[in-house]
């Protein structure tokens, strides 16, 4: 079996890649192991992600399906009285900010919508599991697939897109991408579910709308999210250092207790902790894959990098990287850059620079909360609004002066610039805060923590 583009994974990165490729006149074949709809975490979108969906012509469908409308994020800090609001704002062609909206999504519904659209647009969907890539003379030429019905397929491709999400399919197999490194937020664990009967805001002001994201900060690296996903249901999760999760305790007991005790404002909003979804956990979610693009392949979204979930950048990064991938893939299919060592070096650096901006924002938030607050509330309010909205790939504007100040604060200003200039088209892994040595390799042993 042959295809121009083989997409491994039919989640938002894969489905959006198929949609954007279709716009370039390119058909693709998607391999997805699970039947949609299926559960997935990561329900909140940035303003940029909302804008991208509008650009894809999906706004009407998003409204018809009744996805909650998000106007911003309210962050409750340690002082009960104080919360700050990060509004979703767009920026128009004249460079002016305007109030904008994006969506919260039940991922089972949203991911199905995107995948259905991709298939309706001409993408072929094969239900099965990609087992290993086909590599000839250093070029990825397709993949072996075990199909759902027990068959085996050899799918030859000119281009393979790894959109496998946090399972980082290609990186874990080894030999195709560069190594996978532990990220700054390893040894953290996210435990999450959904609740009914939560008390939501009910105002008309943008910061008091019922469907906004709420974040509750207890102490460094220990926080909770509250993301409405329909009129009754709210996604809730607690993120904390793994050491705080008592051994032997069930995830349900742990999550229930945390939701009651983490922050008084959160417990006020949850008079009963009625968990209506299985309680799941994701440990050690922070990583970065080096050289995630090469001859005949690229990794998109979580398949190559995940920093920290607190400001809901995941979907945004996956969708936007998928958008930017399309023209690069088209050029490759037209025979361009065939002789260069990494035909997607420009694309790779483009993506890395974007996530580096996010990473520096996140690190400044965690490591320098006071300076961060002054910047958000006063000094760089508008510039940080751009970053929070996910406008991080606009390299003519990013890193802006706010992000550059964060880099200085984090002692990595020169480091970032150097990493862009040394020809490796690759950002320096900042590495785990727990490790004195920088960026140890990820230990791929299933269920084990990264090398300690």
């Amino acid at each position, binding site marked *: 079996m042959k295809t121009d583009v083989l997409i491994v994974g039919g989640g938002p990165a894969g489905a959006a890649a198929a949609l954007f490729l279709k716009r370039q006149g390119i058909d693709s074949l998607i391999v997805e192991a699970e039947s949609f709809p299926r559960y997935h975490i990561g329900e909140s979108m940035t303003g940029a992600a909302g804008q991208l969906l509008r650009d894809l012509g999906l706004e009407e469908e998003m409204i018809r399906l009744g996805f909650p409308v998000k106007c911003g994020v309210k962050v409750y800090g340690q002082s009960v009285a*104080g919360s700050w609001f990060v509004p979703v704002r767009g920026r128009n062609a004249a460079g002016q900010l305007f109030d904008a909206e994006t969506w919260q999504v039940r991922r089972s519904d949203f991911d199905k919508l995107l995948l259905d659209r991709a298939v309706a647009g001409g993408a072929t969907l094969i239900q099965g599991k990609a087992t290993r890539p086909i590599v000839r003379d250093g070029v990825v030429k397709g993949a072996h697939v075990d199909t759902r019905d027990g068959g085996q397929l050899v799918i030859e491709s000119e281009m393979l897109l790894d959109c496998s999400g946090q399972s980082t399919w290609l990186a874990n197999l080894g030999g195709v991408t560069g190594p996978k490194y532990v990220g700054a937020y390893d040894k953290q664990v996210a435990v999450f579910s959904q609740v009914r009967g939560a008390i939501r805001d009910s105002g008309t002001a943008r910061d008091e709308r019922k469907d906004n994201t709420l974040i509750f900060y207890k102490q460094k690296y220990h926080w909770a999210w509250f993301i409405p996903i329909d009129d009754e249901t709210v996604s809730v999760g607690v993120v904390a250092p793994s050491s705080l999760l008592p051994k032997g305790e069930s995830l349900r007991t742990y999550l229930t207790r945390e939701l009651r005790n983490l922050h008084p404002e959160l417990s006020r909003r949850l008079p009963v902790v009625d968990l209506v979804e299985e309680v799941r956990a994701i440990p050690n979610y922070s990583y970065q894959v080096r050289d995630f693009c090469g001859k005949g392949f690229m990794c998109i979204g979580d398949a190559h990098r995940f920093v920290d979930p607190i400001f809901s950048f995941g979907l945004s990064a996956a969708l936007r990287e998928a958008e930017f991938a399309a023209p690069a893939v088209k050029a490759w299919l037209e025979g361009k850059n065939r002789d260069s060592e990494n035909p997607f070096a420009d694309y790779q650096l483009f993506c890395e620079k974007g996530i580096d901006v996010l990473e520096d924002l996140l690190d400044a938030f965690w490591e320098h909360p*006071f300076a961060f*607050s*002054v910047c958000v509330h006063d000094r760089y309010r508008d510039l940080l609004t751009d970053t929070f909205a996910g406008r991080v790939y606009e390299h003519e504007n990013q890193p802006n002066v706010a992000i550059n*100040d964060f880099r*200085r*604060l984090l002692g990595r200003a020169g480091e970032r610039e150097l990493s862009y200039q040394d020809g490796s088209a690759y950002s320096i892994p900042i590495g785990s805060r727990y490790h004195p040595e920088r960026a140890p390799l990820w230990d791929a042993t299933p269920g084990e923590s990264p090398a300690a």
Partner: protein
Amino acid sequence: MTEDTESTIAIIEAFIRERFLYDRPETVLTPDLPLIEQRLIDSLQLMQLVQFLQEKFELRFDIMDLVFDNFASLSAMANFVSKQKG
């Protein structure tokens, strides 16, 4: 304590009393009282205080100086401001 520091402390204290402690006039503020630790002001009020100090004394604090220690008490703030002015 220099005269300059004393007058700076008085200015900051007046601002805090007027803006944050208006309903608690009996509160005793000593120069070394840890304002945040004692929860006399919260983190959002602290932001307003930083803004006020910059405007009042026509300063722009470098991001590297935006650490709690420089704003922990009246005297810490006054010392920090006087260093910035110098």
